[in-house]
């Protein structure tokens, strides 16, 4: 150090100012793009607002109306079906495919077809599957050609079947990427304990239950957590396949939010549904992750 020296206190203060200045852009971006919209949406949810003029404060009226509306409850039920369906089918099938193929010679060729579908956007998946599932569409024609029952089913018209077949279409797309993630997890498991277990006679279900499954836990937590959040905000594929109909029979919470805000221009009610959905997603994700990542948690 040469020349004039700076007192430690003064130097600390100047570093702090520098640090704050460097942090300012990031803070602004987060504040303007993330916090501000959330706060604004929360405020609007307590108002009646058509996007023009000034919002009118109505207190909890939007929330009361929301929970009194049977269509909202249908939407809630459908969203729960999506959560359960998404976690059991694409995640479950992905795990099955991964476990069966991860140490198989040429296993990649078995997994590849499942992965290709991930390159397709959910809207395109919805459009293609709506051709397959519409009355007299591809599926009905195939069932009829083979003399199988179900050709007369109105797959996309009757509830809750329409939601269930859409979960099937979603599984068609999502299974591959889940399988890929599980394979990465399985391949990162140390070989030694597995070899030891195999030498001790563990194989098949026992090997999976007592060795693979516990060692996959960190990755399973991530995959299920992502599926949980994705399923709670299901929108695009339903919009492309049924637009939430017929009537409002296949609507999810995200579609209800869209319908209120952008179709009815009832931004207050739309914001109330959005806030409800955000809080549910937040609580579900936090509760799940806390439980799974807690060191005391036992499988």
């Amino acid at each position, binding site marked *: 150090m040469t020349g004039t020296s700076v007192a430690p206190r003064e130097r600390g203060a100047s570093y702090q100012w520098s640090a704050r*200045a460097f942090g300012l852009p990031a803070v602004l971006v987060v504040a303007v793009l993330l916090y501000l919209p959330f706060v604004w949406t929360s405020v609007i949810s307590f108002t009646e607002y058509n*996007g023009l003029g000034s919002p009118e404060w109505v207190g909890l009226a939007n929330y009361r109306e929301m929970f009194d509306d049977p269509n909202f409850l249908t939407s809630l039920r459908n969203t729960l079906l999506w959560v359960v369906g998404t976690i059991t089918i694409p995640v479950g099938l992905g795990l099955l495919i991964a476990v069966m193929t991860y140490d198989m010679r040429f296993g990649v060729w078995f997994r590849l077809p499942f992965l290709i579908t991930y390159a397709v956007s959910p809207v395109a998946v919805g459009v293609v599957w709506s051709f397959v599932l519409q009355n007299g569409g591809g599926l009905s024609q195939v069932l009829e050609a083979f003399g199988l029952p179900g050709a007369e089913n109105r797959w996309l018209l009757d509830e809750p079947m329409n939601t269930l077949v859409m979960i099937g279409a979603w599984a068609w797309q999502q299974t591959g990427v889940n399988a890929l993630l599980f394979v990465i997890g399985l391949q990162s498991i140390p070989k030694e304990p597995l070899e030891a277990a195999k030498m001790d006679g563990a194989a098949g279900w026992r090997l999976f239950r007592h060795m693979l499954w516990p060692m996959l836990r960190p990755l399973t937590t991530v995959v299920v957590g992502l599926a949980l959040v994705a399923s709670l905000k299901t929108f695009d594929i339903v919009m492309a396949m049924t637009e939430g109909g017929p009537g409002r029979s296949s609507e999810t919470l995200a579609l209800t939010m869209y319908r209120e805000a952008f179709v009815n221009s009832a931004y207050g009610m739309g914001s109330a549904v959005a806030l409800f959905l955000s809080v549910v997603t937040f609580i579900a994700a936090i509760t799940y992750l806390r439980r799974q990542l807690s060191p005391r948690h036992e499988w």
Partner: protein
Amino acid sequence: MHTRWFQVRIRYSATVAGLAASALVLAACGGDDEDEYGSGGAEAPGSLSFYTDKAAWEPQFLQVSDVSENALGLTLDFTGYSEADQYSAFIRQSFRTDEKPDLFTWHTGSELEDLVAEGLVAPTTDIWQQSIDEGNVPGDLREHFTIDGEQYCVPMNAAYWVMYYNTKVFAEHDIKEPTTWDELVAAADKLVAAGQTPFYETNILFSFVWFQTLLAGTDPELYAALSSGEASYTDAGVVDVMNRWREMHEKGYFGDPGDQTEPQVQLKNGTVAMINFGTFLSGQLNSVDMVSGTDYDFFIIPKVNPDLEQTPLIFETGPICTAEEAQNRDLALQYASWWMTEEAQTTWANARGDVSFNPKALINDEQLASLNQEAGTDGYQLLERYFEATPTPVLTAALDEFSAFVTNPGDPMPHLETIQAEAEAYWSDQG
């Protein structure tokens, strides 16, 4: 010395970086005052920013724009949205910015009332009076653009709702154009007996069409009263109409409401024999190589109740509006005035392959031209399409309920009660 210099340098750089980012964010939030005509708007005084949710109609709008360039020295700077909900949100938001649209398409009824209530739309009362005086628009049309005694916007288009049919299917089953409701029912019965589906129906968006036809054709006063909140969806007259609709389903009159094949293709393929649709279907039928008068034709839907003096005829019109604080407000109003003239309407209607609200417009399609004349005679009562006549929240609920009803035709009461609940909530808010 070096350390000191370095500290100052870091502090300076960080401050500049912070200020630059703040400026960027503020610039993004604020308007751009230097760009006189707006980045998304017109490029020069002779060009007006024009927004619409009818993106597919761009070639037709641009044809009119070419004519207006010669006539007025004004062209349209076209921005089309293909998603109506996105468009509606965009226009509503645009009024909060400095880029208010010179011209934009909108909806009559409650959607227009929302804008007028906030003083966002330029009045067009003088333009209407002049156009009516010059015979460019029927005076009856004015009431649909009137709010509190003033007119707002001008009609973009006009369409009548009629029954299109596949001429080959009619000839095959020896069916003539029905002139009474009984003849229409007899034709449908004949087609069903021959294994041919008579009518098109859909559960997406246009699920209201047959409700509109049956109610307007049975009791036009009740139809109008329902739109204005003076009647209830659970009134006996409405319930009777729904039951008639259900009976028609039970007789197998309607095609699959879940079939997403386009209506023009369904008519061309003979999947259905008839389509109850707006006259803009002519353009869509022409686009699949069907020839008017040869492959397809249409007739005015006979009144359901034979005791009515006039035959109810559903028409629709959508407005072109000017923002009150638009940058080129006066030029835009000049354009709106020109839009109603014979010159503009002849170009527009023929480009679209549709009728025009201007009776002087020269329509090339003979069938449409004769409909344009016939609709103006005393035998017909023009009723506004259900879609525009019904306030948006009630309409949204009704479209959902009709969609559910046509998919699973059954007891209409739960559907009607749901719509009525929405209607009561809406009309009580209106005071």
